[in-house]
């Protein structure tokens, strides 16, 4: 790894926003491959994610790292070899929404952001989403992963209802479903019929990555065990 590349990686991982964006701009001006710059930022995000899981970083650091990646991503956009006919390749499609009866959206918004900057195509359908809307959006967007968000414990029933409706509509086998948002654990996952659950935005990204890569089977869908 070149000196500047190591420096960029360290600046992003160490939350030095202004210096990181400045260095990224400098590297791009000097002719550095924009894909290489993005790869370094993603590597830095992995370090940030690890520090978050270890309790060194918390949510503000995770978000700030994502914003740095976002800013640097904007710098690389004009330089990337893409056209309207050939949009940037995405890792997969994720549909996310807060289930009906629940208005909480902060966690959902953070997960949406993290999925987006990690290369997923994300459709956020909002809060208090009725079952029928989830079905309609799934049929239209054809996601590989559906993420159900809910903070209230009483939202678990809404999650179960939504998943049952997806099954009744004949759509269940076409996707994996993950849940998250509040006091969720393996018991809740089993109750709702979801394939997996996550306690953090990082979990949501990892789940989506694994499932879309086909590396995760239904019986071992819980990342929490692996993280612990």
């Amino acid at each position, binding site marked *: 790894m070149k000196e500047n590349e190591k420096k960029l990686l360290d600046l992003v991982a160490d*939350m030095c*926003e202004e210096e990181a964006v400045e260095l990224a701009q400098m590297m791009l001006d000097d002719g550095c491959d924009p894909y290489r710059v993005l790869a370094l930022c993603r590597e830095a995000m992995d370090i940030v994610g690890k520090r978050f899981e270890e*309790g060194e970083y*918390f*949510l*503000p650091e995770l*978000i*700030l790292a*994502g*914003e740095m990646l*976002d800013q640097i991503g904007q710098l690389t956009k004009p330089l990337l070899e893409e056209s309207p006919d050939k949009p940037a390749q995405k890792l997969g499609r994720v549909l996310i929404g807060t289930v009906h*009866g*629940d*208005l*909480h*959206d*902060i966690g959902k*918004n*953070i997960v949406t*952001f993290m999925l987006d900057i990690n290369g997923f195509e994300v459709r956020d359908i909002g809060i*208090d989403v009725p079952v029928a809307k989830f079905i309609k959006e799934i049929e239209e967007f054809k996601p590989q992963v559906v993420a159900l968000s809910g903070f*209230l*414990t*009483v*939202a678990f029933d*809404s999650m179960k209802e939504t998943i049952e409706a997806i099954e009744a509509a004949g759509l269940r086998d076409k996707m994996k479903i993950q849940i998250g948002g509040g*006091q969720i654990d393996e018991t809740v996952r089993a109750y709702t019929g979801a394939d997996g659950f996550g*306690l953090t935005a990082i979990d949501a990204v990892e789940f989506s990555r694994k499932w879309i890569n086909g590396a995760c089977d239904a019986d071992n869908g819980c990342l929490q065990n692996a993280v612990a």
Partner: protein
Amino acid sequence: MYQTIHNDTAREAVMTSDINIDLSCALATLAKKSRAVGTEFKTRCKALDMVAEEVLAAPMATYTNIPVQGVREEVLDLGQFTLQAPGLVAISSKLASVVAVVCTLGPTFEARVSALFEERKYSLALALDELGNELLFYTARRASLQIRKESRRQGLSAGNFLSPGDEGLSLDQQAIVVSMAGGESHGVSVMKLGMLSPVKSLSMVAGIGLGLSAQPLRKRCDTCNSRERCRMQTC
């Protein structure tokens, strides 16, 4: 078995009060209490300025003090209302009345937070949302201090404040608590799963009577399910 509470100790009948919080005082207090450093501190300062300049919050509390008529199993008879509150029934021998409180910042705050997320200003959105929670808890603390002061004036004391969803008060009592406090006339309503709207609102109840004591606020962390992952606990 129904047990009538002889309310010799109830000094006053049903009483309702409003507390309007001075936003600039509240923000000044919260600005001093921050543990944020570096970039996080700068973002927090931006959030504080935003609340002040755009007047994103109109923090207020309303509360009603209702004498207890009787107790049956886990239910308190409050005349017009019946409240299923095992946490209060447990102290019913000391109970003269129940005070129900609703606090809110109003609807503008959450709309601004959502807008920031849509603008991809995530750090600022998060900082603003966190500030909103602090402002709401500040409002609740001011309300609880006022209530305790008024109780002492009557020669009584207030016990712990319980919110629907806490141990001793089920979430399904949310609508009753909000109704008791008169929350609807201050723009606070209860959604079908028990969530309050506006989102930056909370409700709580406490017993008022003789010899009641309250747990220090920091001890509430001991029973919080999120304590292990909470950065406020670990900072």
